[in-house]
């Protein structure tokens, strides 16, 4: 029976792609085969628009144990221990069902980590939403945060930090990116391979239902006004099941009865069987009628494409079956043998013995479509990059601007968010959320792992290449501010429709920027995720690469946070004192503009700054370090002062002489609220000023003493002239409540 053209179209094949399918099979596909090809060749699984570009990332380095290609990347942190980490997006599912979408995103990334044989020890998330004055957005935020909390808290992996931003462009397409970090003994990494003909293939975990069928293709399709009625089945997360799977899988891996293991994520059984086979250069054969099912009457097509959560596929060594089965029994899980590895290189699917699909495995993966899509610099840039301060209304009183910025949800304390996350479980969290990068100690060693997620859609909108460089620099800088050496990176590239040349240009530029900065800062990319088609009704989100950088702190007792620890310490500004207003929070907040160009990062100077920070932490020359970002130095300083045991400061900032946008009316505003990379505010340990300044000179990092901690107010001067002054209680009131007040009356669905 021949497959109808409408069926082929509904599976998203282009004519050329379908032709290639026919060549591979040498015949017409069965419906199950068509489904398998369609998910494997979807954007989500095949990276067909992005693969070409991702090759430009640096992925090697002396510390890299596992680069891109496996379930997660891995770097050597010393003491025979490997850090395993990855980031994943769950944007579309979270928009459709915020709680479950976010929850299953967390579940998915955790599986990627323990699949590698690593124990997950920390989670981060990076979130983007529309503005909070819209009640629908507030419900979305409420649901996403509750979903992340619901899953992470229950499974017992601390969520130790992240980032959250609000821009109108994300209103119809929020971004939910989650990052997980685990640790493994260097020699105990597990791989997603199927090899050794005759070895049994096991299915373990939740039963298969009709959830998320075509989820992988859905994640690659633009939203339109009909999406709401398509109502694709939503997966419901079961963190309890995953906790059992996590413990049982780690226990099985401690035996050597296992050949390979992979979770069933996007495209479920299809992806796990064919990828494991392809990696092991083997065939694999399963019978879908043996797959545990939650619903009756499921077809082979449905079983192969289901995205039910909390399932794993594993290949055991023949003769060692009993050991594997016993471990799962202990955890009340039943490992079910559904097939075996074969030597014929075919992915063969049976249903009660009868073959329903038979596909050569290598070509399914290797001959997946690959596109070099056209790129074109978008027309909006010329206008958007042009910022003329003379056309702006005169700035308000600096004190007023300062308080307003502190109270902006993007800048204000994220306490409302992270209070909902168990950030202390497992007793490794050395720095509580809100104080800087995530810091977890590695028990049994003196070390800690330090990690940060950063990205700024506004910057990338105005200059995607610079935005990419800035994101890498900021994430690495946040790691260095804690005293750690950045050693590896992961990334999540959230963009619009790649078939539009302007979007593809943004993508390509951002990749170039990221690649360049990763090389310069010596943080190879070990993996990541691409999420395309982030558009609603033809309106794309800001191009939003999110960078996750992981660093290692050899001695955990050297750790630093952003907070000024006590009065009477000197405050030093490291890095470039000049800030610009292009793309700044001030411009958006006070003038409603996303305009100009973000201040560029000088990567050599950035690297020198980060090395200086690591030296200063090791030498205990400094007591705190905080990276200035959104809202400029005035906001940075306020953030150093508030929070636990608040201490005030008197600071005199240099005038921003070199700023690009010269306008006398804006001199003070630029000094206080101008943004620039490679700037860090530190408090100096008593008696260590000269050492810090001389080391800074050696490394050619600008360093100026700008003030002293103490008192119960934050007083700011520019070039000797007092310009703004707020009480710690006022700062805490504005900054502490800026986000929370939006949520006081929201009734959550999960209530």
């Amino acid at each position, binding site marked *: 029976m021949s497959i109808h053209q409408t069926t082929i179209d509904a599976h998203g094949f282009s004519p050329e792609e379908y032709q290639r399918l026919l060549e591979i099979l040498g015949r017409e596909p069965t419906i199950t085969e068509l489904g398998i090809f369609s998910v494997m060749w979807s954007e989500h699984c095949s990276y067909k628009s992005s693969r070409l570009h991702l090759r430009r990332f640096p992925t090697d380095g002396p510390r890299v144990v596992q680069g891109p290609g496996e379930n997660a990347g891995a770097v050597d942190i010393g003491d025979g221990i490997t850090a395993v980490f990855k980031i994943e997006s769950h944007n579309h599912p979270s928009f*459709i*069902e915020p709680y*479950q979408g976010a929850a299953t995103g967390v579940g998915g990334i955790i599986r990627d980590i323990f699949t590698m044989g690593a124990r997950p020890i920390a989670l981060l998330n990076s979130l983007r939403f529309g503005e909070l004055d819209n009640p629908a957005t507030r419900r979305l935020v409420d649901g996403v945060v509750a979903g992340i909390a619901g899953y992470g808290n229950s499974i017992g992996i601390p969520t130790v930090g992240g980032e959250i931003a609000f821009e109108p462009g994300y209103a119809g397409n929020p971004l939910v990116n989650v990052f997980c970090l685990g640790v493994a003994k260097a020699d105990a990494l597990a791989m997603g391979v199927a090899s050794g003909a005759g070895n049994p293939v096991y299915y373990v975990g*939740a039963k298969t*239902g*009709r*959830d998320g069928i075509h989820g992988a293709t859905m994640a690659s399709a633009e939203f339109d006004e009909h999406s709401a009625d398509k*109502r694709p*089945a*939503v*997966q*419901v*997360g*079961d963190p*309890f*099941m995953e906790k059992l799977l996590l413990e049982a899988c780690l226990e099985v891996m401690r035996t050597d009865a296992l050949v390979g293991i992979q979770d069933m994520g996007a495209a479920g059984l299809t992806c796990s069987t064919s990828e494991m086979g392809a990696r092991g250069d083997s065939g694999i054969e399963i019978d879908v009628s043996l797959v545990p099912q*939650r*619903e009756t009457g499921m077809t082979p097509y449905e079983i192969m494409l289901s995205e*039910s959560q909390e399932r794993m596929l594993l290949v055991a060594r023949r003769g060692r079956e009993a050991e594997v089965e016993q471990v799962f029994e202990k955890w*009340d899980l039943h490992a079910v043998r559904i097939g075996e590895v074969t030597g014929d290189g075919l992915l063969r699917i049976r249903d009660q013995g009868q073959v329903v699909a038979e596909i050569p495995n290598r070509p399914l993966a290797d001959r997946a479509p690959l596109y070099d899509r056209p790129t074109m610099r978008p027309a909006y840039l010329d206008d958007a990059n042009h910022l003329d301060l003379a056309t702006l209304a005169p700035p308000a009183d600096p004190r007023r601007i300062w308080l307003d910025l502190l109270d902006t949800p993007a800048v204000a304390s994220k306490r409302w968010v992270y209070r909902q996350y168990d950030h202390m479980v497992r007793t490794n969290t050395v720095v509580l959320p809100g104080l800087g990068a995530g810091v977890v100690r590695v028990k049994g060693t003196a070390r800690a792992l330090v990690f940060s997620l950063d990205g700024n859609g506004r910057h990338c909108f105005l200059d995607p290449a610079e935005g990419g460089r800035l994101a890498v620099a900021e994430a690495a800088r946040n790691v260095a501010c804690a005293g750690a050496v950045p050693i590896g990176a992961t990334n999540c590239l959230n963009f619009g429709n790649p078939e539009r040349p302007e979007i593809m240009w943004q993508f390509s530029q951002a990749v170039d920027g990221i690649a360049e900065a990763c090389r310069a800062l010596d943080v190879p990319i070990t993996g990541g995720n691409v999420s395309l088609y982030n558009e609603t009704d033809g309106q794309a989100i800001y191009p939003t690469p999110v960078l996750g950088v992981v660093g290692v702190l050899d001695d955990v007792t050297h750790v630093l946070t952003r907070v000024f620890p006590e009065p009477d310490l000197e405050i030093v500004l490291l890095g470039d004192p000049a800030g610009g207003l292009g793309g700044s929070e001030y411009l958006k907040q006070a003038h409603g503009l996303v305009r100009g160009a973000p201040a560029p990062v000088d990567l050599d100077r950035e690297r020198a700054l980060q090395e200086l920070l690591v030296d200063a932490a090791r030498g205990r020359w400094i007591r705190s370090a905080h990276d200035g970002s959104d809202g400029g130095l005035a906001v940075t300083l306020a953030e150093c002062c508030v929070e636990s045991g608040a201490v005030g400061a008197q600071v005199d900032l240099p005038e921003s002489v070199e700023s690009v946008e010269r306008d006398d009316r804006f001199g003070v505003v630029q000094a206080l609220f101008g943004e620039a990379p490679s700037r860090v505010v530190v408090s100096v340990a008593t008696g260590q000023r000269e050492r810090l300044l001389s080391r800074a000179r050696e490394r050619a990092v600008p360093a100026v003493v700008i003030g002293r901690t103490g008192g119960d107010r934050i007083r700011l001067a520019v070039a000797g002239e007092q310009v703004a002054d707020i009480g710690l209680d006022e700062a805490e009131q504005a900054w502490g409540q800026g986000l929370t007040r939006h949520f006081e009356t929201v*009734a959550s*669905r999960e209530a």
Partner: protein
Amino acid sequence: MKTRVFVTLKPSVFDPQGRTIVEALQSMGYGSVRDVRQGKYFELDVAAESADAARSVASEVADKLLANPVIESYRIEVDGDDGS
């Protein structure tokens, strides 16, 4: 008027709580309980002239707030009224 709203997961949606409860009951010796699905139950006190009016308020409220139409469906009962 006392109005009851029952919110249940749609039949195709997986109910991990229900499954865990059945397994617990089975290990406690209640093998005769073959399946459990867990839902939510709301008792609303609605100021309305008639059962119909109360029902219509309750169903608006269920649509907007009490139930999540993507994964849940609901049923309403009004005191002294058996339609459903």
